[in-house]
């Protein structure tokens, strides 16, 4: 109770938080707090009324960033399926901004199929995919995004797999806007989230985020500061990355905007089809017999 009062009087974005759910369950040093802050700032700067939002999340630490902490209609769903639930929500509420905020294991591991097809469909939802390279909530198991060679509870010797390049994959699946930033690049992140919210079509902002407790601690970066320094040192812009070999890019984080091109959006096309069908079958009121 006392902590909630403190946040309320000192934190500018407190009005966007669901007070009854505070304090957050996030670990000290978790990048999730930065993402929540960036999202709140983006909403604030765009002057979006939270009544116009529906936030959907899955299972995992990152799924908790906005649900239940962000004050809006929030749907906390099953592991990996947030995007599929969000698809139904968007079709039913086409005028609202539907945002999915969830983690890498959730959206790109078990939920990879839904991520790819939502991008292919180019449905107007904004996905903030928080990538902390690990399944954090369950104690630190290897994820499809864990760096090659890393130590996790299920790769106790070293990881023999290579991580999935999420932003690149989604870009080639047909999304309208795809960007990757890190929790170190907070201002670019806020601007990117603003763009993603405004783009009509499927938008993905992949945020590399620190999990010092489950990932960092096992990989020689046990403080959040060390992890953020790692992000800062290893981030390469897309333009620079173009001229680097795969070996040079190993272990690097490519940041920037991969795609920013609007095209035919799913719910619009669906509603257009309905109008066409009404015309074809003369179902309008004027044609009533």
């Amino acid at each position: 109770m006392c902590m909630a009062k403190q946040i309320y009087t000192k934190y500018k974005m407190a009005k966007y938080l669901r007070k009854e759910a505070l304090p957050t369950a996030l670990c000290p040093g978790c990048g999730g707090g930065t993402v929540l802050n960036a999202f709140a700032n983006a909403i604030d700067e765009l002057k979006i009324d939270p009544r116009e939002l529906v936030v959907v999340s899955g299972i995992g630490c990152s799924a908790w960033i906005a649900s239940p902490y962000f004050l809006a209609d929030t749907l906390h769903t099953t592991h990996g399926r947030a995007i599929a639930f969000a698809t139904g929500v968007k079709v039913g509420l086409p005028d609202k901004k539907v945002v999915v905020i969830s983690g890498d294991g959730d959206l790109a591991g078990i939920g990879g199929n839904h991520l790819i097809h939502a991008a292919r469909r180019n449905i107007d939802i904004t996905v903030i995919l928080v990538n902390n390279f690990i399944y954090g909530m369950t104690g630190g198991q290897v994820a499809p995004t864990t760096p090659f060679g890393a130590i996790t509870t299920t790769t106790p010797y070293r990881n023999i797999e290579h991580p999935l390049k999420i932003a690149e994959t989604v870009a080639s699946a047909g999304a309208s806007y795809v960007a990757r930033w890190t929790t170190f690049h907070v201002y670019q992140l806020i601007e990117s989230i603003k763009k993603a919210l405004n783009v009509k079509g499927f938008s993905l902002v992949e945020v590399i985020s620190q999990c010092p407790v489950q990932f960092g601690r096992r990989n020689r970066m046990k403080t959040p500061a060390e992890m953020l320094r790692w992000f800062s040192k290893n981030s390469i812009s897309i333009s620079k990355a173009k001229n680097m070999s795969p070996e040079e890019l190993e272990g690097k984080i490519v940041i920037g905007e991969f795609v920013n091109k609007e095209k035919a959006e799913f719910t619009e096309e669906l509603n257009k089809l309905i109008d066409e069908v009404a015309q074809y079958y003369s179902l309008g009121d004027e044609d009533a017999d």
Partner: protein
Amino acid sequence: MIIRGDEPEQIRLLKKLYPKGNYFMQGDEAIAYGALFAGCRFYAGYPITPASEIAETMARELPKLRGYYIQMEDEIGSIAAVVGASWTGLKSMTATSGPGFSLMQENLGYAVFTETPLVLVDVQRSGPSTGQATKGAQGDFFQARWGTHGDHPIIAISPTSVEDSFWETIRAFNLSEKFRIPVILLADGIIGHTREQIRIPDPEEVEIVYRKLPANEEEAKYPFGDVHGDLIPPMPIFGNGYFTHVTGSTHKENGLRDVYTPEVHDRLVRRLHKKMEVHEKEIQKWEEYYTDDVEILLVSWGVSARPSLGAVIETRKRGIKAGLIVPKTVHPFPGKRIRELSKKAHVILVPEMNLGQMILEVQRVVRKEIPVIGVNKIGGVPLTVEEILKEIESSAERSRHRSAD
């Protein structure tokens, strides 16, 4: 968006597109038209034999009624989208068969725990696994009851003909909307792919129900609370500024997760079960034939109820006092009535197209009072009147010998 299905515009379209009269169609199509008349305006699905025709009919007809069809990448995504759409105010449905039904269990449990209205059609086919994909069966009776994990209630209903499929689909929607619980329509591949005559009614003659919405801001604060005393919370759907929080974790009346307080979990899970118990009379439905003086009682469901009735009628002509009860709502099971009838009868026969599932419910309620014998058939070909008739006559014969001792 809120679409009830009985708005003047919807009625006008239904009358224009499907004028009242006699039609000839498959069970699958009847289910789709039943959904449309019930007010379903969102369908998300994935193709699977023998349910694909439901998706095809919805894809063709929904746009005409300004409804939404979306084909998802798999069954899991389908039921997820249905839940999402239901929370925006749309009556939503998906249809599948055994393998797809298995995939949907997790999100079905999510819908039960979050009290999301929806209809899930399982056009049962021969299993296990891929089985006999094109052949009907009745092997999902208990999967419908217990397929998803945990202590959960469910409503499952099973039609016995093409025309019955139309009306039972409407009843499925009404139960689901009234009680804020997913309803499974246990159809089968035989009726699903058989064409029969069906009378499409005037839409104004069809009574449909829409979920309770909060009357004010105060009621909206308790999306999972017994606000009205009937154990059915009003549903503060998204998009109305209620800031509703919905989660599959154990939650308090206001929707927020609380997994640490045992009483919260106990209260929630028990209320979900009590909600069904208290309203059982409205949920229960069965049909009885020749049960007043029944000696050999048949209990059958879905497609097997048809040859069962044929066998009962034939044996009655031969002087055997056979009778039939057909549970239309199979879960919750009409145990009380069957137990009552078991006091009159000498034996119970349970014809079904599986190796014995509904029979376990019959045995549970009848206990050891009288013999309960299954008339089971698997392999994709329905039971025939002759097969059931033979069983009835054997039972009659055994009874005669016993009374002769």
